[in-house]
């Protein structure tokens, strides 16, 4: 899967240089959809493959992806537009100004992660298939990947769908990884909350902490990425990609550690070991 993602970026890079495309390329809706969904499907395969002991049904994982793309994505956009207020309200020019932090953390972060949370909490979370803590990460990551596809598609079709192929491909891969990882943190909290068994208050506290932690990651990602993507009056897409990759990779490593911890204590692992014995 990871090789496929690298191949996707390398192909875009190769096409751009072989065809000598120095200007942005215009993508139609169909090609933008393909461009946004390619890295998403590869990441989906990667995260699903991490569920080794008892892989979740593929149609459930796909369902989580669809919920992220078609429910959480539009819902978050609606909430952000609603909370951003009157059109006269605009962000200040300084890329690290306080209003940008408030906007990124309390509005964008909470709206995005809250929408992903609602999409899973009131559907697959209630399903009998959600039967171990690891499932929280698997389903939420799938939702995050669907959500990132929605964002990538929207950004590709905005401004006439013009992008630099190589930077656009790398950004789509990294954005997908980032949203899958943020959702993975929230998924960890959801899995933990469902199976920890310490009462309603404890469960709600874990869920709220998970949601806020994911929102903080998402907000920081946005602010710092925006701050690094401009250099004076010039735009630096590769600087943005490089930073987003570093940040997303850090959160991804954290999610991977959480996955390993949950795999080690998975109830299905002990079942397998019992059967093997």
């Amino acid at each position: 899967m990871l090789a496929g993602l690298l191949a996707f970026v390398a192909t875009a890079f190769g096409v751009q240089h072989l065809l000598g495309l120095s200007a942005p390329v215009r993508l139609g809706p169909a090609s933008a959809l393909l461009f946004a969904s390619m890295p998403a499907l590869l990441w989906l395969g990667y995260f699903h493959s991490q569920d080794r002991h008892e892989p979740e049904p593929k149609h459930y994982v796909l369902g989580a992806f669809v919920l992220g793309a078609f429910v959480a994505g539009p819902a978050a956009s609606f909430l952000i537009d609603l909370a951003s207020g009157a059109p006269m309200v605009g962000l200040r020019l300084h890329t690290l100004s306080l209003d940008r932090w408030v906007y990124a953390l309390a509005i964008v972060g909470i709206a995005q992660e809250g929408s992903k949370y609602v999409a899973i909490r009131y559907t697959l979370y209630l399903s009998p298939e959600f039967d171990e803590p690891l499932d929280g990460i698997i389903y939420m990551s799938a939702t995050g990947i669907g959500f990132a596809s929605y964002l990538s598609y929207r950004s590709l079709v905005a401004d006439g769908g013009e992008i630099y192929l190589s930077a656009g491909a790398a950004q789509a891969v990294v954005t997908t990884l980032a949203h899958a990882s943020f959702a993975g943190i929230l998924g960890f909290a959801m899995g933990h909350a469902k199976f920890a068994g310490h009462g309603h208050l404890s469960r709600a506290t874990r869920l709220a902490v998970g949601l806020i932690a994911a929102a903080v990651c998402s907000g920081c990602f946005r602010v710092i990425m925006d701050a690094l993507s401009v250099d004076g009056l010039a735009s630096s897409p590769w600087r943005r990609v490089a930073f987003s990759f570093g940040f997303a990779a850090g959160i991804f490593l954290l999610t991977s550690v959480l996955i390993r911890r949950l795999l080690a204590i998975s109830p299905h692992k002990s079942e397998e070991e019992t059967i093997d014995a």
Partner: protein
Amino acid sequence: MRDRASSLVQRHDLGVLVIALAILAGGALVHRSLACPDHVSYAKQGLQFQRPGGWLTLPESNSYVTPLALGTAGFGVGTSAPPAPNEPGDVHTRFASPKDARRRIEVRIEGRPSYSNLRGALAVQRLGQYGEFYWARSSGNSAIAGKDWLRTEFRYAFKPNKRGSPQIAEAIEYAIVNDERLFVVTLHDRPETLNDLDAIVADSLRVASQQASHTTTDKAPP
């Protein structure tokens, strides 16, 4: 009943949603107070109004042709601009949003047009500025702080850049003749946000009263 409600809240962890919505609402309020632009006053030759702070003051221009119209090169718009105002004391100032150059306020102060029909004179000027891609939506007198301003809403087409598709911009023009001087304040914006800009500027529009305004006697062109 109360137990059932409490059980529902607990079973579905509705408290988490309440916390999330509270953060979102609080964030929205704080963000509005931080990001809402402060208004600053514009005052020149008796003309006063409030405008959003932080906007860029574009260089004084001798030409009536807006950058938007110049962006339509190839469409022929702007090529038939009327002669530049050269009289001493004439003002042509433009303020533009640093985030969206389509959001602009244009101020023109000059001698009253020799053509007695103000509405007609302004219509001719707009035609010269925006060419065939301009059309007026409505025009009428608007009483602001005891003065009758001629308020005209119009639209025009422009291209944001050479490769861009033609787009429609909307504008509202306020004009008045006072002390033999013509004061014209034009607000340019996207259709969806023009009313917000209008609310800031129009409510604060003032012109020093030394002689009676002349706009009420003007007649619409045929």
